């Protein structure tokens, strides 16, 4: 009986030590493989207005993701996330129709990101943008 108690105690100690050792090995491996923490999204990007002619779009990387700047034919400048809200494909700018088309499942968005047709459940996310003294500031 005494032996059983001792065995049980040692078994619990062994199990505990195994759990601690496993955690000690797993934590560095997890940290090693975890993605590096990138910019939080607070960064600002500046483009010259001349880089973006009327009716054109410019794709760029913003806060670790794809974004797009559009200057509509009415002269308005819009910055949007270029990630389709359906399944995450990158939308394309269709100059002729002045709208966005997602090549994966034919989702369509207006130049300001509103859903026109197709499966996307939400509009494209808007990014703050301002234009002053010939410069476009995103973020």
């Amino acid at each position: 009986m005494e032996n059983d108690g001792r065995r049980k105690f040692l078994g619990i100690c062994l199990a505990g030590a195994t759990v601690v050792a496993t955690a000690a090995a797993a934590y560095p491996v997890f940290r090693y493989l975890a993605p590096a923490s990138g910019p939080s999204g607070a960064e600002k990007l500046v483009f010259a207005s001349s880089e973006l002619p009327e009716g054109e779009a410019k794709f760029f990387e913003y806060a670790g993701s794809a974004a797009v700047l559009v200057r509509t034919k009415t002269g308005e400048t819009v910055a949007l996330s270029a990630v389709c809200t359906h399944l995450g494909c990158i939308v394309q700018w269709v100059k002729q129709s002045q709208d966005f088309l997602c090549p994966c499942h034919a989702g369509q968005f207006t130049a300001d990101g509103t859903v026109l047709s197709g499966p996307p459940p939400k509009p494209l996310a808007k990014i703050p943008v301002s234009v002053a003294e010939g410069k476009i500031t995103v973020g």
Partner: protein
Amino acid sequence: MPLFKRVYDWIDVRIGARELVKKELTGYLLPRNINEWYSLGSVLLVIFAMQVVTGMLLLVYYVPDADKAFKSVTYIMNELPYGWLMRLCHAVGSNMMVAVLFMHMISTLMMGSYKGPRELNWLTGFTLFAIVQGISLTGYLLPWSQLSFWATTVATNSVSAIPLIGQYLVEFLRGGKMVGPPTLGRFFALHVAVIPVIIALLIGAHLFVLKRTGISSPPFGGDEPVRHWPGDSYRYQSHPGGIPFFPNFALQDLTSIAIYFAVFFGVVFFGPDLPFTPDAFVPADPFKTPAHIKPEWYFLANYQILKIFPSELLGLTVQAAAMTFVALLPFIDRSPERHPLKRPLFLVCSIGGILLWVGLTVWGHYS
């Protein structure tokens, strides 16, 4: 526990797990006088597994490109969380693997376990030893440091002493006249794909042969009757009345593995520079050979032999002859006696050989 038992029962009725456990673990009997030296094989299995796991983790970030390899290793060491731990475990582990292999082979020699019917155990083990040196050599180049570059230059250059085909062999190994980007590609493929598969197959063969012959009894400290194998037919060496592998010897295996880890992590945490020289922290420069470039410690004796002999070919021949002698030892030393103290010639030659190797290694280090 009831859940564990139910799962075990579920598996048992399907694949006969209990019968397997009884046959391979609790009913697998080992000689009563078995000693801790017999657990070095298990330690080596753990080291190999660690090398595979840390190697796979390093592959996530390592870039096998001559322009990027050094930077990627520096990034792993200095910027990635715990990258230094992964790399040090791999680098220290490779050195430890060679050291424990040496100990495993010496214990096999001293206990006469290489003798018939275990010639195949010795041959597969010896080949493993040579191949492990190959995987260490190919891995040495991958960080693309001055040390890697020039140690590989020296090591591959020694092949040129082989008459007629030597120079061609060197170029074939390097993928060009000099060590360069093609060498990195070749060594990378050998290190991460080709040699690990060969090692895994050889370990499988080694364990298979061990299972078929049965484990040998230590030649001392036991009361098992000595039964010499006449060599006329297959005989499995069983150990009636012996101790079960599980839990008795499994506990010894775990103890040896724990001691190994204590030493291993002692080096990783308290002597992390041991596997490296200052040249390991400088990127490879093909136009600047550093002074006093030396190979890894386990190649120092080979390196010193090449320096001693006036002709490189003679040095290589002596090494090849010594390696062949050790590889074919079970076929040369055919006496059935296994106790080391009852084999004075063997004892003198083996201790002399080990001391010679140690002496050449120390000489190579300080020369």
